[in-house]
């Protein structure tokens, strides 16, 4: 789980975003996506704690204590930003006004179901805004390390408590791009240097290999 792996994921997901998209990036790896937007693509980032127009991290000493992201980190806002309360924030999310959300996951399965908010008896951070994001955003992209040290996270069926049923559209890992279709998971792209057997070894779910299998563009 090197920095490199995360950067591969973030770079590839960034290519899914279109100019003008309203995007909500989860805390952690998904946040990195903003650093790799293709030239000419500008997106509006929504922060579920109450604004659109999320900007960069402020320079040291220039932090505004009233301006934080959903992870409680100091951020800035861009020109054209707007603040609102939590009901409006989730009205925007649930109401389909967010084009793309990028989230991490503990498990994803063949139905596009997702588990990412608790491991019973062990780690229970809570779902925060994740359940609303998956149910409301037009496109849900999961960005995650492909397996947990070799143990598959892309499963026939999730074993952990679900965040949402059938909500995921695309899974991007450091090894592959997998699309969730009505007919199950379709392997669309392989990372450079990765072959199909590598993927199958670290994947529990059934994968259909796309006729037009490509190499992931991570430049």
């Amino acid at each position, binding site marked *: 789980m090197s920095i490199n792996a995360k950067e591969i994921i973030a770079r590839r997901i960034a290519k899914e975003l279109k100019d003008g998209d309203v995007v909500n990036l989860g805390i952690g790896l998904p946040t990195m996506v903003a650093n790799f937007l293709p030239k000419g693509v500008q997106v509006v980032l929504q922060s579920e*704690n109450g604004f659109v127009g999320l900007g960069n991290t402020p320079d040291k000493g220039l932090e505004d204590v009233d301006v934080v992201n959903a992870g409680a980190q100091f951020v800035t806002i861009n020109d054209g930003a707007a603040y609102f309360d*939590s009901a409006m924030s989730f009205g925007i*999310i*649930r109401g389909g006004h967010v084009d793309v959300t990028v989230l991490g996951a503990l498990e994803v399965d063949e139905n596009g179901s997702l588990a990412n908010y608790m491991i019973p008896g062990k780690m229970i951070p809570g*779902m925060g805004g994740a359940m609303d994001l998956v149910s409301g955003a037009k496109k849900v992209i999961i960005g995650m390390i492909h397996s947990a040290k070799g143990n598959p996270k892309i499963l026939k069926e999730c074993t952990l408590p679900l965040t949402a049923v059938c909500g995921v559209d695309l899974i991007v890992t450091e090894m592959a791009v997998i699309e969730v279709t009505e007919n199950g998971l379709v392997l669309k792209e392989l990372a450079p240097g990765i072959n199909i057997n590598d993927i199958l070894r670290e994947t529990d779910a059934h994968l259909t290999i796309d006729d037009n299998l490509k190499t992931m563009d991570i430049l």
Partner: protein
Amino acid sequence: MNKIISIDDVMEHIHDGMTIMVGGFMGVGTPEIFINAILDKGIKDLTIIANDTGLPDRGIGRLVVEKRLKKVIASHIGLNPETGKQMNDKVLEVELVPQGTLAERIRCGGHGLGGVLTPTGIGTLVEENKEKIVVNGIAYLLELPLRAELALIRGSIVDKVGNVFYNASTRNFNPLMAMAADKVIVGAQRIVEVKEIDPNNVMTPGILVDYIVGGEKP
């Protein structure tokens, strides 16, 4: 009708065992002066309704660390490991609610609505013990109102009749909670004369606020 009172006077309105809504998101927009006072005065067995349990040294997190809570209704407890620990040790009851659903339930409580149908949580643990209602072929959960005896909110600028302006991302749950409690007390970063806040920019009208206490730090 002077609404400005001292922090000591506020404590007459906060008792052991109360259900209290507290504004803020990971501590941002949380009225820390009331957290301080609750800690100082030994208030305990509280049920807190809030977005999260803050950080161990910030916001509601400090009440968790000092074991003043009986129950928490929140969407996220991950930034304060002490909450999960007390939950697993079964000394603290935690009800996890999706963040958007939490906002709507509090809004229902304050707006006289009997509940709201949301697609969020269908097929997950969240649907336990809840009615499912199908509208136009889509299944929704019926989520019920939340109210509290007291709401403790934080205003960036508050005028003397209680009109509140929340700056930037401090707004979050504060205006929703100011509608949904029997009594509403606002901790003000700055108290100004009436008319200093443009009526267009008031985010919580003064009619909803019972008391104002100054002294919130930036």
